[in-house]
């Protein structure tokens, strides 16, 4: 694990200074900001599910991120306008959670689990192979990132590719994973947890 110096910051952005000169942003006025209809309807639906509308913050940010690709200032302003909260409030939420990105990291997300159980079966090699293949192939618009336990240690080593859990993986799977993302295909057919014929290689239930 000596590579750990090269790991990305555990909390990206923690060292970004705040601009103390700037006035705090107010809750944006819905009359003055354009929010795509779909997004607005979805956020309104989400707010209606809870006794307190603020409970919709996380699902609303997920929806905005799906639309905009990241929690951009524009995306946050749109959610803030519909939810009637300040952008700073939503930013404080977004910055807490690993899946919400306040930087444009890419629309595709490859989370390679390198947590404790996967570490025991050489997950770092899988991560390195995918990261290398992605860079060799010039894979764009994609975040390849080490992740903590994804709750699929029976499939170790494994990864979540845009939400699709695949495993057990071998470093030799890396080129195919990168190719499939590039071509917009489903990665590793038959080896995803959601596939109807999915079986662990040793026959266990997953």
């Amino acid at each position, binding site marked *: 694990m000596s590579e750990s110096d090269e790991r990305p910051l555990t909390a990206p952005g923690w060292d970004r200074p705040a601009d103390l000169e700037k006035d705090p942003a107010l809750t944006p006025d819905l009359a003055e900001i354009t929010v795509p209809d779909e997004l607005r309807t979805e956020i309104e639906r989400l707010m209606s599910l809870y006794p307190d509308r603020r409970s919709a913050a996380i699902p609303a940010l997920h929806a905005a991120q799906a639309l905009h690709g990241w929690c951009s200032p524009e995306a946050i302003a749109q959610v803030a306008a519909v939810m009637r909260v300040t952008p700073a409030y939503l930013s404080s939420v977004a910055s807490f959670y690993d899946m919400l990105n306040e930087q444009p990291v890419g629309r595709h997300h490859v989370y390679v689990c390198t947590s404790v159980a996967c570490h025991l079966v050489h997950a770092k090699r899988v991560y390195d192979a995918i990261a290398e293949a992605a860079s060799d192939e010039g894979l764009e618009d994609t975040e390849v990132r080490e992740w903590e336990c994804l709750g699929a240690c029976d499939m170790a080593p494994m990864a979540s590719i845009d939400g699709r859990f695949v495993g057990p993986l071998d470093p030799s799977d890396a080129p195919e994973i990168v190719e499939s993302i590039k071509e917009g295909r489903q990665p590793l057919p038959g080896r995803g947890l959601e596939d109807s014929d999915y079986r662990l290689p040793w026959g266990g*239930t997953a």
Partner: protein
Amino acid sequence: MALSELRLLKNINEPGLATIEVYEKLGGYRAMRKALLEMEPEEVLHELEGSGLRGRGGAGFSMGKKASFIPKGRMDKYLCCNADESEPGTFKDRLLMQKNPHLLIEGIVIGAVAADANKAFIYIRGEYELQAEILERAVAEAYDRGYLGDRILGSEHSLSLVVHPGAGAYICGEETGLLDSLEGKRGNPRLKPPFPANQGLYQGPTLINNVETLCNAPLIIEHGADWFKSVGTEKSAGSKVVSVSGDVRRPGNYEIELGMRAGDIVYGLAGGPPEGRRVKCWFPGGSSAPVLTEADLDLGYDFETMAEAGSMLGSGAIIVVDDSMPIVSLALRLAEFYRHESCGKCTPCREGTNWTVKMLERIDYGEATPADLDVMADVQTNIIGNCLCVLGDSMAMPIGSMIEKFRPEFEAHIEEARLRHGGLPLRAHGGRADEAVGSHAA
């Protein structure tokens, strides 16, 4: 003893089990009917309490007793199902939700009857997108049949149920972190007391239970508390879905009778470590549980025996580590996890996890001396009991157990790393250990 008949996983491979038709054909929602139409809420509570069912999420507290703490009276009361499942090594709730979502929904309705809750939420980790979709579909089916909503089956009881996604934060599995997250905030744990039973979600009375805990409720109501207790030990009643992972030949979920010999789970069910390797240590209850050794595999796998052995059953996740894994590499990866996941609210946890990582890196870089082990052990002692929640302890206890049980290996590692770099601080060479401990021999 192996379980003679599966309970929670009985129909798990039945095609279409996730649909309400198949679930009902196999006897599903009978227990809910019984709880709503044939029993008084006190009887439901009594049955759950009498079964001895203990929480399957980590702390092992009696489910019925916790439900009985919910104050009486006509106000909004909440039931939150903890489906955050982020403890390294744990993947049982994933299986239950993906394959048998209606069992969980039925369990939630029964739990809500016992606690007189009228609003329920399933807080599911954001990464479980597939399972959240399956649950959403199942919840819609249950609403369609009138098993959720106003006056269920014409009874006095109403219940709404919302599936709520997280967004990647282990700490949201801690029950009060979960509540803040569900209220739309950062998932920082709260000071207790007040306990959630009195002031939880939106300051209202709240019952929080793990997925597997709630999945047991329909079985208890259908077959009775005595049936439930007929397997397991006196203080650890029932069966348990155990997630076995790491250096075993057949990682997976296995439903066992509590009290089963641990070695029979690790070797008999999961196949033991690969050819030619031996068990070096194992985590009996997720990565937060102090490690036990090969000799401890003779113990019974239940709450009290694991606690007596100085560890815990936790979430029921057994991570097996074989003798090819250097203990420093394991400790470092573990500490990095807790450093990443610490919410930062308490100094001992925020700083202690960070310094533990740094000290382990120093060991690996050949910059440490054996005295540093005492400093590191001391850091662990200073975390335990000094934080708002037990995330800090969850690193301190396993790391402390590793230093205690594998001290000679730590010392040898320190010495070897120093010699490799001529006894000079590594960074003076401008390089790093050529042999990364992370890449343990294949």
